[in-house]
């Protein structure tokens, strides 16, 4: 029997994983949710058929979306995570004893419930006492928050479907307002390689730049995401991710990671020429 999961990375390019069995399938108010098990990648979660994470390579994404801002400002105490229903981002955050409060806002409770049952690798820390989960629209949640969070992590789906509102100017502006004076916003920034993703990436970059004095883009290699090359946006009111990196103090925390390290922290902001050109174009648009 041949049983394959296939995602179309573009109209003309496909990515497939041989599936051993399907563990879960349901349709929520917002999207279709599936969890599969595969020989090559372990369990993996898809939303509307698009790859969200696999057990084998999720560490890359979650390391990079959490430890880059945390090493830039180890003093971060209050964190807002938007999306991230699988719990992986929260799991990394809970490793910092200095963080006092983690608010997670996920629009789709069914994603969290499914991950609690079938993806314990990422969801195991959602029960940490510092974590409060709000099941609502992220854009709605930030609308009435002023100067509350030191860090906002936007761990969203792509900007088509329920994640759409998290790539808009009204969202970034409201996040700016919700951040403290030294606040940092990190978001998943799509991929630069395929045109449709690159367009979302440029649009997001341009919009974020309008609000934050410091905006950088950094990258990671994530085998199961389209093109395997993924970007993150780093936007900040005061802290510069390279200048203000406090490598010594982060290393002294003794947080064991598999992908992130403080050398990579400096290196991941060095981008390929074509990506720099895309970002320059976004600035000019």
């Amino acid at each position: 029997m041949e049983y394959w999961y296939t995602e179309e990375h573009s109209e003309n390019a496909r990515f497939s994983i041989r599936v051993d069995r399907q563990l879960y399938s349901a349709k929520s108010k917002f999207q279709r949710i599936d969890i599969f098990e595969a020989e090559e990648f372990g369990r993996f979660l898809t939303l509307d058929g698009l790859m969200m994470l696999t057990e084998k390579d999720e560490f890359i994404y979650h390391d990079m979306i959490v430890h880059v801002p945390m090493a830039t400002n180890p003093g971060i105490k209050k964190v807002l995570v938007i999306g991230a229903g699988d719990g992986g981002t929260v799991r990394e955050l809970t490793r910092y004893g200095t963080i006092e409060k983690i608010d997670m806002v996920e629009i789709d409770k069914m994603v969290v419930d499914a991950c609690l049952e079938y993806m314990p690798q990422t969801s195991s820390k959602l029960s940490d006492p510092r974590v409060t989960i709000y099941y609502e629209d992220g854009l709605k949640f930030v609308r009435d928050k002023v100067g509350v969070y030191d860090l906002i992590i936007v761990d969203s789906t792509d900007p088509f479907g329920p994640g759409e509102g998290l790539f808009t100017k009204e969202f970034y502006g409201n996040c700016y307002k919700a951040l403290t004076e030294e606040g940092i916003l990190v978001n998943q920034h799509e991929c630069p390689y395929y045109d449709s993703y690159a367009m979302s990436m440029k649009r997001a970059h341009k919009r974020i730049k309008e609000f934050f004095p410091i905006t950088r883009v950094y990258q990671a290699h994530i085998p199961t995401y389209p093109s395997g090359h993924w970007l993150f946006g780093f936007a900040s009111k005061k802290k510069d991710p390279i200048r203000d990196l406090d490598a010594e103090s982060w290393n002294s925390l003794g947080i064991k990671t598999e992908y992130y390290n403080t050398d990579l922290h400096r290196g991941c902001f060095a981008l390929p020429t074509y990506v720099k050109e895309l970002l320059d174009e976004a600035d000019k648009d």
Partner: protein
Amino acid sequence: MSRQDRTPIYDALQKYIDNRIVSFDVPGHKQGKGHKALVDAFGQKCISMDLNSSKPLDNLTHPTGVIREAEILAAEAFRAAQAFFITNGTTAAVQNMIFSCCRQNDKIIMPRNVHKSVINAMIICGAVPVYVNPGTEPELGISLGMSVSDVKRAVSEHPDAKAIFVNNPTYYGVCSDLKEIVRIAHDAGMLALVDEAHGTHLYFGEGLPVSAMDAGADMSAVSIHKTGGSLTQSSMLLLGPGIDAEAVRQTINLTQTTSGSYLLMASLDIARKNLFLNGREIFAKVCSLSEYARREVNKIPGFRAFGKEIINGDTVFDFDSTKLSIHTRAMGLAGIEVYDILRDEFGIQIEFGDIGNVLAIISVGDRELEIERLLGALSEIQRRFSKDPMNMLDHEYIDPQVAMTPQQAFYARKRSVQIKDSLGMISAELVMAYPPGIPILAPGERLTAEIIDYIRYAKEKGCVMTGTKDMEMNNIETVEE
């Protein structure tokens, strides 16, 4: 009433295509075979259904087959005695109501905040307006409905008037006491005509203001495409029981196209079915979205989303809570400025902005996600764009000084003058911000200092002013006296 499941026009189109009829008639694109670009642009199915009147497809000007059937189903769904499908826009539906009951010099009682199609109908047929001043909400600066006592006065002063014309609701969602006005009209031997361009949902939702047919009105123009889900430009004219339907059809045929679009007609058919079967649920959701948005907007300092609290038993007899109208003046921004910022900064297109308000239409097609985007953007506008509200012009209704009928003024000898020099002259043209398309000045009305100032201010704030021959609206055509 399972027969409301049917969609006779759409079914006939499908059957026509399935029968692979060879076409030697118009339209010349021959179901797209001769025009690949058209098929690529709009899709094969759509172009295949762009067909011409014929025996199996009936004829809009003299329907005896599937169009007739579809009109009967529509009449039943809208609780009317007769329904006409209109493919020339609700403008045509409104105008045919007036053409059907007014000849030259016949009087018609109406509020001044009618759509421009009403004024244009009077230019064409020579009817004479008797304006009833719609009240103005002092804080919001919006025109309201007609007060029952004002209607009674107009009726007793003009007992020879042929009809009373009512907006149900206004663009902002304000309803007059329609049942009472219909009663007054009928007691005086007049017809009650209703512009329900923004009222399709009143026939299908619960807890909404009364619809024209339910209130016993004689005719109503219902813009199904606005809130009912049919294609743009498709509309219906509904008749109550006392009206000679065949005479109305003769009137409609004076101006309606003889090549009625089957895409528009089929969309009316499909929309009617959906409204009948699912309307209650759809508009319950629309109301709850709209009420939620109103509550959330009202938490943003400087914006006021008004609702049922403006009901006063007379000029606001009822309020259509599907409408999300927001007063912006305390934000230091004109409605039109908020409208422009929403589009240019946030990629959000709303229905209109005027001097003091914006209106967001919430309908069949809306979801929570989009509502949150609108609310997020409004809260950002408050943070980033709000100003001192000093020097904001606030009035909306200007009592017209009618010097001659719209028709006399339109066809008079004219002279073009600069608007700033036009004080005291009689306008030969319409002036309005579009949308909403409610004239600030109609042909036959005098230019007052207030109107000249209003036009200048509206232009300065970025309202799209239309109606004059001069596209820049620096000059206006006036009647030579």
